[in-house]
C-alpha cells in the first residue's frame, strides 16, 4: 500500500520538471497559423492520451458528434459551458501555439492571459509531461475544425471576474509536473500518472475545500454536479477495499462489475469516452495505484442485498415496489441480477445503499447512458410522467430491496 508521503510526492512533483517545461517551450513554440505537428504516430498516441484524459466527456457537443463544446456545468458559483476544442481558429483552439497550449492545460491560463475556471481540470493536467500534452494537441489539430462558438458563461460575482482565479490558482494549483516515486514499481507509477494526471479522478472523487480546491482527504468521495463520486480509497467498507481486481478491472474498462453494479452519470461518461479505450496494461496499472490509496472511512457503505429486506418495507417503499414492477423491472429484474445485461444489475451497487441517494435520484430523474462493446446501454429519465412522490417511492424501494437500506427518500429530492 502506498504511503501518504508518496502520494504527496507525486502531487507536489519537483522543480526539475518545471525546467523541462521552459526548455520544452524553447523548441516547441510556434507562431499562430504555423503548421501543426502531423506525424501519424504522434496523432495516434495523442488520441489515446486524449481518451485517457477523458476530454470528450465534457467537450463533446450535447447532441453528440463533434468536440465543439456547449455542455453546461451548473456549479455553486454559476454555469460554465465547455468550449469548442476543434482546431477552428475563431471559435476553437486553432490559434494555440505549443507554449500557449501548455500554459492553458497546466496553469489554467488561456490565450491572451484569460484565466480558465477549474471545471477544466488543469490542476490535474498540470502533472502532464510536455510530450503527452503536446501529443494531445497534435491529435486535436488533426480533427475537423468546426466554427461553433461556446455559449456565454453565467457566473455570479465575484466568480465572473476571471482575475479572481489568480488567487485561486495560487491557493490550489501546484503547477508541478508528475514525478515518479522511485520507491514504487513502474506499474504503480504508470497507474499514478494515469489516475492523477490524465484520468483526473481526484477532481470528482476528492472532496473540495471551501474555495473549490481539493481537500487533503484524497479520494474519500464527494458530490459533484449532483452526483456522488464514491470513496475510492482502500477502505474495505466505504471504499474499494472489498472489490476484487477482476471487479475493478471490469468496472473501469466496461462500466460494470459483477456484484457491484454499473457506472452511471459522469462515471459512465468517463468509461464511455475514456477508460474503455485504454489498454489492459494501463487499466491494470490504475488498479494497482487505486489499491494503494490509504483508507479513509467516509461516505456510504455498500450493503449486501437481503431477501429479508422486503418484509420491513415502509408504506412509501411498498408503493415504490408496485411502480418498480411497472417501469423498472423490465430491465432490472427484482432479483438484482439485471435482465438484459449485467449493466442493469443493481445488487451490490454503491448507489443503491447510499441513504442520501444522490445518484439514484439523478438516474431516476435524468437517466444515464453508456456506450459499450455490446452497444449502447441506457436508462431514460422518468420525471416527466411520474410525480416526485412516486419517484421518491421508487428510490425508497430500491434502497430497501437492493441495498438493504431502510430509508424513505423525500419527494423534495426530486424537485428541480
Amino acid at each position, binding site marked *: 500500500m502506498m504511503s501518504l508521503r508518496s502520494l504527496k510526492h507525486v502531487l507536489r512533483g519537483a522543480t526539475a520538471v518545471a525546467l523541462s517545461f521552459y526548455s520544452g517551450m524553447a523548441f516547441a513554440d510556434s507562431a499562430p497559423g504555423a503548421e501543426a505537428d502531423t506525424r501519424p504516430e504522434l496523432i495516434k498516441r495523442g488520441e489515446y492520451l486524449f481518451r485517457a484524459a477523458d476530454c470528450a466527456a465534457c467537450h463533446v457537443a450535447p447532441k453528440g458528434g463533434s468536440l465543439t463544446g456547449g455542455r453546461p456545468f451548473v456549479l455553486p458559483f454559476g454555469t460554465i459551458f465547455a468550449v469548442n476544442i476543434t482546431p477552428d481558429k475563431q471559435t476553437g483552439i486553432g490559434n494555440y501555439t505549443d507554449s500557449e497550449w501548455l500554459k492553458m492545460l497546466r496553469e489554467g491560463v488561456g490565450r491572451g492571459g484569460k484565466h480558465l475556471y477549474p471545471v477544466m481540470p488543469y490542476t490535474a493536467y498540470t502533472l502532464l509531461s510536455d510530450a503527452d500534452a503536446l501529443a494531445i494537441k497534435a491529435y486535436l489539430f488533426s480533427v475537423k475544425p468546426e466554427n461553433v462558438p461556446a455559449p456565454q458563461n453565467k457566473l455570479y460575482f465575484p466568480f465572473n471576474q476571471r482575475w479572481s482565479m489568480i488567487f485561486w490558482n495560487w491557493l490550489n494549483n501546484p503547477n508541478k509536473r508528475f514525478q515518479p516515486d522511485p520507491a514504487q514499481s513502474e506499474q504503480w507509477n504508470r497507474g499514478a500518472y494515469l489516475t492523477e494526471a490524465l484520468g483526473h479522478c481526484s477532481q470528482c472523487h476528492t472532496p473540495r475545500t471551501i474555495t473549490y480546491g481539493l481537500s487533503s482527504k484524497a479520494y474519500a468521495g464527494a458530490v459533484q454536479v449532483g452526483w456522488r463520486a464514491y470513496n475510492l480509497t482502500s477502505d474495505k467498507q466505504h471504499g474499494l477495499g472489498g472489490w476484487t481486481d477482476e471487479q475493478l478491472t471490469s468496472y473501469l474498462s466496461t462500466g460494470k462489475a459483477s456484484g457491484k453494479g454499473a457506472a452511471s452519470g459522469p462515471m459512465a461518461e468517463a468509461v464511455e469516452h475514456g477508460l474503455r479505450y485504454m489498454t489492459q496494461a494501463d487499466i491494470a496499472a490504475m488498479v494497482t495505484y487505486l489499491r494503494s490509496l490509504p483508507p479513509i472511512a467516509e461516505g456510504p457503505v455498500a450493503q449486501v442485498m437481503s431477501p429479508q429486506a422486503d418484509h420491513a418495507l415502509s408504506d412509501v417503499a411498498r408503493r415504490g415496489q*408496485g411502480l418498480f414492477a*411497472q417501469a423498472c423491472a423490465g430491465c432490472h429484474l427484482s432479483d438484482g441480477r439485471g435482465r438484459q445485461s449485467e449493466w442493469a444489475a443493481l445488487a451490490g451497487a454503491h448507489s443503491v445503499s447510499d441513504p442520501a441517494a444522490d445518484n439514484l435520484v439523478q438516474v431516476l430523474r435524468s437517466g444515464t447512458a453508456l456506450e459499450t462493446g455490446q452497444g449502447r446501454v441506457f436508462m431514460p429519465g422518468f420525471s416527466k410522467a*411520474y410525480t416526485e412522490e*412516486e419517484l421518491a417511492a421508487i428510490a425508497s424501494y430500491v434502497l430497501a430491496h437492493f441495498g438493504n437500506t431502510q430509508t424513505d427518500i423525500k419527494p423534495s429530492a426530486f424537485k428541480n
Partner: protein
Amino acid sequence: MKRKNLPTSRRALLGAALSGGGGFLLSAFLPGLPLLKASQAQDTATGVVFMPNAFIRITPLGAVTLIMRYAEMGQGIYTGISMLLAEELGVKLDQVSVEAAPADPAYVDSVAGEEETGGSSSTRDSWIPLREAGAAARMMLVAAAAQIWGVAESACQARDGRVFHPGSERSLSYGELAEAATHQPVPAKVSLKPASDFTLIGTSPRRLDTKAKTNGSAQFGIDAQIPGMKIGRIMACPVKGGHLTGYNRAAALAVPGVVDVVTLPDAIAVIGEHMWAAMKGMEAAFPQWDYGPNATTSTDDIIARMKKASEQSGVVAVKNGNAQEALKQAHERIDAVYELPFLAHAPLEPINTTLHIRPDGADVWVGTQVPGRARQEVADATGLRPENIAVHNHLIGGGFGRRLDSNSIGQAARFAKQVSYPVKLIWTREEDMTQDQFRPYYYDRISAGLTKDGAISGWHHRTTGSSVTARWYPEGMQKGLDPDAVEGAAQTPYGMPDQLVEFVRDEPDAVTTLWWRGVGPTHNVFVVESMIDELAHQSGQDPLALRKKLAAHQPRALKVLNEVEKQSGWGKALPPGHGMGIALHYSFQTWSATVLEVAVEKNGSIRLVQVHSAVDCGPIVFPDGIVAQIQGGLIFGLTMALYNEITLKDGRVEQTNFHNYRMMRLNEAPDIQVHLVPDPEAEIGGIGEVGTVAAAPALANALFAATGKRLRRIPFAKQLGGEKA
C-alpha cells in the same frame, strides 16, 4: 367520426360486386404475395365460385369466406360483422374464414360515405344491410336447391351451411350448391329473421381473430414480409413546418447493412437489410434541420392564444331560451374553465407501411381504417392510377383513431417510389409519439346557474380548440361549426331550457390534430358531467339523484342510472379517502352510466378501486364483445385522465416514449363490471368508444368525492401530489 346521413343504399349492397368485375381476389389477405389478377383467381379456384355480393364467397368445396369491409384493430369487428352475415346466411362461425376487403368502392360504408372504420359505427351501419346481404345469399342457395329438387323454396330450410328439404330428408351443402346458386337472380326483396329466431346474434362465440394472436401467426402491417423487401426507418423534422437541411450520407451508407438513404423536403429515411441497420444508419446520418416558423412554439403559447380566442363569442351550436338572462336570474352560479390536453394515440403497433411501387402499379401492405384514402394517398404520391394500386389491409395493433389518417402512407409512398424494391418503412416509437396527429387541446369556458330549489338556471358552454373535421372532412363543417367539437355538449341527457353552446375555432400552427377514441364526447362529456357534479355539490344534492331529476324525460337514461346505482351500491358508507363518482352519457346512440370508486392516500397516490358501468346500446349482437370494449375503453380513458398530455417546447413534442407518456399497468387497473341492459326495440348503438367517454368525468367526480378537490384539467395524477396538496 362523421355521419353523412345519406340514405342507406341497401339495394346496392345486395348485388354489390367489386369494381374490377365479378372475379374475387383470393390473395387479398395473404401478405407476402403480390395481388393476384382476377383471372388468376378464377384459375386457382376449382370450379365456379359463388359470389352473391362483395361480402360472401363460397367455393364448390364448401369454403365460406366472409369479406370484412372494416379493419380489425381489437374491437372484435371481424366477429361481430361475421355474426351478422352468418346469422342470415345460415352458417356456423366455425365454418367461415374471414378476409380483409381490398380498397374498392364496393366496401364503402354508405353512412360514412367512404371505406372507413371509425365513429363506433361499423355495427350500426351494417346491422341491416349486411344481414340482408347474408339473407340474399341464403335465398339464392335455397332457390338453387329447390330448383334441383323440384320443390318449393318455402319447403326448404337453410342452416349450418346446408339446405334441407325435410319433406324428402334430402340436403345439399352450400359448396354443392355454389355453382347452381350463381345462376339464381339476386332477390329483389329480402326479409330478415325476427330476433326471436336468432341463433348467433346475441350470443358470445369465440372471436375469429384471437387464435392467431396467441401464437404469433397473426399478421399485423408491421409483420409484412415481401420477397426482396428492405426495411427503413423514417425521421421527419421534429418541428412541424421545418425542413431537412443536411445529413451525413457517407456515414449512413458506411453502416453495415444500410443500402439507401432517401429524403423528402421534411423527412429522411434510411433503408437497410434490417431495422437495426436502418436505426444505426439514421444515427450516423445525423440529420440537420431548419426548424422553420414554429421553432420556438411551446404549449404555453398555444394555450395562451386559445385562452384569448375563448374570450370572444363563437359559432352557435345550440341556443335554447336565453342562457345569459337565466344565468343573471340564477340563485347561484358556477363559472369554470375546463382544459383537456393534446393527446397521442400511442397504439402499441407504431406507424408502418410496406410498399412496392413499380412503373405500372403498386402494392401496399398496411393496417388502415381508411383503405380508400390510403389508395388515393399512394396515387397522389406516385402519379399511379388508383385502380393500379392494391391496398392489402392488415390487422391493426391498436387504432384509437390514428389509422383514420393516411398521411403517413403518403409519406411512405413518396419515399418508396425512390427505390425499385419493396420496402417496409417503420416509425420508431419516438417517431410515432412525436409525429402523431394529436387529439386537440380544448379550452372550455362553462357557466351554469342554479335556482333556489336546485334546478339548472342557464347553461353557457363555449368550447375553443382545433377543428379536426375542417381538415379531415371539410364537407362536414356546418357554416363554421364543427359538429364534432360540440358533440356531447350540444345535446346532453338533461333538460336545459336556457342553453347556449358555442364553438370557437383556434388552430395551433405547430400541431396537426386528429380523431381520438371517443372524439367529441370524450371531450365534452368530461366538461358537462363534471359541471353537473359541481352543480349537485353546490346545491347539496346527491349527484346521481340530480341526474335522475334532470334526465327524468329520458327513460333509457333512468334505466342505466338505476342499474348502476344498484350494482355499485351507490350511497353506501366508504372508507376514509374513498369516493365514488358518476358519469352519464348518450354517445354513438348508446346510453351508459358509470360509477367509479377511487381511494386517495395522503401522499396523493390514487388507487382505482372498482368500476361499474351500465350500458344500453339497443339490440345486442355480441355481448362479450361489448363487455370487452367497455372494459378496455374505460382503461384507455382512465389512462388518459390520470397521466396523459402532449406538450411542446421549442416546437418539439416533449414526450417520446412510454417512460414519459405513461400507460396504465396491470397492477393499477381496477376491476370493471359491465351490466348490459339492452333495448331490443331501440336503434342499435355503437360501443367501441363508449367506455372511454365515461372515464375522465367518472374519475374527476370520484376524486372530488374523495378529496374535495375539483380537478378541471386533465391529466389528474400530477395534481394530487402529497406535498402540493
